[in-house]
């Protein structure tokens, strides 16, 4: 046996390769079981980038289902609440070209809104409570309902089921706590305003004089 292999280089090479393949196969197989990652990590990552409004504007019943859909090859531009920022972040994560927002699913809004129930008009039907994906509406049957503003994601899923149309989407009032400094006026514009063709040896007026002459 050994002699046959020793005399036949092709057989020797083949044996060696098959042997290696078996060893590495075993190692890889073991690693696949031992270090198995539970769940789909990419879904988690995409989900963490989505805005979690659970509004369903993408056509999926929440952010996680959409994350799963993206992981399965759906387009990444279906999230109006996240807007271009979210699209860019997901594109960055998936290493794809960032598309613009698909207008079919809605337009990006700058102002964050929350639901507000006109409480004296509420009849206590609990329909909005059932519709709320994040349990941000408080109330009971035949009792007045109210929205917990801090938990409301502004998905407006509660507006449609209301039989008396007493839910409004109001923009969140910006208080001192939300205030931040603005970016300074873009320096790029100022740079453009400067004469870009001037060089260090040029003196103001001299160039003009040359031109005039």
């Amino acid at each position, binding site marked *: 046996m050994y002699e046959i292999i020793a005399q036949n280089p092709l057989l020797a090479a083949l044996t060696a390769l098959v042997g290696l393949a078996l060893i590495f196969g075993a190692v890889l197989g073991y690693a696949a079981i031992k270090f198995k990652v539970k769940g789909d990590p990419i879904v988690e990552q995409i*989900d963490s980038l*989505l*805005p*979690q*409004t*659970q509004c369903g504007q993408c056509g999926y019943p*929440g*952010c*996680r289902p959409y994350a799963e859909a993206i992981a399965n090859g759906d387009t990444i531009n279906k999230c109006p609440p996240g807007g271009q920022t979210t699209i860019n972040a997901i594109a960055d994560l998936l290493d794809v070209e960032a598309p613009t927002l698909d207008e079919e699913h809605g337009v990006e809004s700058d102002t964050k809104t929350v639901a507000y129930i006109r409480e004296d008009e509420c009849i206590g039907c609990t329909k909005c409570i059932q519709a*709320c*994906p*994040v*349990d*941000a509406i408080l109330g009971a049957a035949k009792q007045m309902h109210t929205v917990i503003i801090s*938990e409301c*994601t502004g998905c407006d899923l509660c507006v449609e089921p209301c039989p008396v149309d007493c839910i409004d989407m109001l923009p969140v009032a910006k*208080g*001192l706590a*939300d*205030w*931040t*400094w*603005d*970016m*300074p006026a873009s*320096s790029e514009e*100022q*740079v453009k*305003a*400067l004469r870009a063709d001037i060089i260090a040896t040029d003196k103001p007026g001299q160039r003009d004089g040359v031109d005039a002459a």
Partner: protein
Amino acid sequence: MRKIWSLTGGIHPAENKHQSVQSSIGSLPLPDRLTIPLNQHIGAPPKLLVAEGDRVLKGQVLAEPKGFVSAGIHAPTSGIITHISDHPIPHPSGMAARCITLEPDHKEQWIEHRGIDNYREKTPSELLDIIRQSGIVGLGGAGFPSAVKLGPKQPISTLIINATECEPYITADDMLMREHPQDIVDGIKILSFILGDPDEILIGIEDNKPEAFEALKPYLQDTNITLVEFPTRYPSGGEKQLIQILTGKEVPHGGIPADIGIVCQNIGTTYAIQRAIQHGEPLISRITTVTGKACATNRNYQVLIGTPISHLLQNNGFDQSQCPRLIMGGPMMGFTLEELSIPVIKTTNCILAPTAEELPTPPPTQPCIRCGMCAEACPASLLPQQLFWHAQSQNYEKLEAHNLFDCIECGACSYVCPSNIPLVQYYRAAKGEMRKLAQEKINSDRARERFEFNQARKAKEEAEKAAKREARKRAAELARAKKADQEASPGGADTETNSADDIIKAAMARAAAKKASPEEQRAKLERGIVRAESHVNAAQQRLDGLEQDATDKQWEQARAALEDARLRLQNAEQKLAALGAPTDDKLKDATVDTAKSVMDKIQASPREALEKKVSTLKERIAVTEEKLVSADDKTLKTALQNGLKKQQAKLKDAEQQLAETPATADQPNSTPKTEDAASAAIARAQAKAAAQESMSEEEKLKASVESLQNRLKKAQAKLTAAEAEGSEHIDAFRTGVEKLQAKLTAAETQLAEKTQ
């Protein structure tokens, strides 16, 4: 001489402090109204204790601290609360916030208050509570509640008093040290006691305040307080920078000075604490520098909190036309005020009213030339130009990596920038944006959590419903099985149906039976087939019984019954097939087989029929035995056992019958008795026929008349018996007798005619 460390980076702008130290700390006449913002500190807004229209005394609590990081506010003078409403407050945003408007009554009537003579008799926590209730916050700039800062969890080895006041123009602390050195030293001693007498107490002072230095020096004899003078350099007054200069230690990233055993307090705060502990006075006023060339007088004032800036400026000969922008704070870190009605608050250390020459508007921004001067000036050892690039491109990850949050926003980088880039503004905006994103992240995480909980809850509810449905279904099936068992063995079931449980189950089974699902329909049809099969069997049995002495009519009836049963079976099978359910082939075959066997039997000889019967019975017993082995239910087992016994009994009977039947016999002659009776009847009938044949016409008639006469006699006897008994059938008997008499007379007349 104590070793001092040098500040990393830093700048030395024109100090401009001499203008405001020419005269002592002044006081101002009471303004017409004081506007006191509710929230003048970092932390939760305090809880309002007064209402509009209330009369308050000087030092009265207007709002008490709510929460751990919070501070109260007090009435700066006696008067009436006229409004509690939104009013512009000193904030870079220029926004309005809830303020209490107080109209002074010019009586300066103090609320009852008294200080503590010997604070060492109190516990540190009692003193901290006084500080907290007195509304004292860091007066250096940030306004962090002092009670929180003075009650760290970590052991403190060094107390540092910040007398640096490094920013240009501001001299409030300088003047305070010059005029109240004794009070300040007392305040330091109180702080030292609260902090458990740390090993080292340092006062850090820049060398541009020699008067203050000299003023404090005599009071520090016989104390463990060390006055440390170091070269003037902006921003050595920053807390982290001062710690580095005095101790050489650096506050870790994201940490607080207490992490390295140091507590830092501003000189103004120290003074306020001394007033609160030893005099019982809450924080209702502070020293504010009013300076700048647009003001005729540059001076420090003891200003009541809530005094409008306009009041302050009016008393200093402010010329608005000279002043393009009014600044609260210093020129490096201050912010522009939008309007003059804004009040002085606890953190207002300076009002700067510079002229256009003094503080010119910055020239237009030029592109960054990567000169690196900003990096040299940065006291926090950051890379300002990198931060600038990333802030511009909003690359927040990179900003985080470059430790943007270690930036103290001192403005040194902007000051040195040859391209006049407003670097700090970029950092502030980026920081704000990052905080906002972090908050959004927290919110979205919470929303995700709530959404997932919502989904989980809904799934659980659904699962519970499904489980209930499943349980109901199973109960119905069980009840049905039980019912089937009861049908199979009616004797054993009686005892079981007593309990209420069984009644409920039976009711549920009935309800389930009403709701005919396809499966149930199929089961029903199958049961129908079984019934039809049993009908066929019954008909067959009847036929078996008839075989021995059957007349044609009986055969006819039995055949018709069998045909009927067969039709029913076929009908049931068709229905089952129409239902589309997978038909039980075994069952079908069995029924078809029985029908066939019955038909065979009808045609076959009794012997063959019996043989077949025996074989089918044997087969059935085998099947039942198999079932018995595989059956696991107890009731089913007993039922099957009963069935098996019956079948075995039947088999015995059939075998006996088979043994009795002659092997070659073709006719039904099972018992000799019946054979004799039959032959006797035949013999009688034959004799009758023969006798009739031999008789003449007359004789025949005579015989019939005789027989009629006999019958009439019998009938008459019956009638008399019935009359005697009073039977209800008398009429019937009578008509019978009449008919017989009529027949007799008819026969007699016939006979008479014949004989004539």
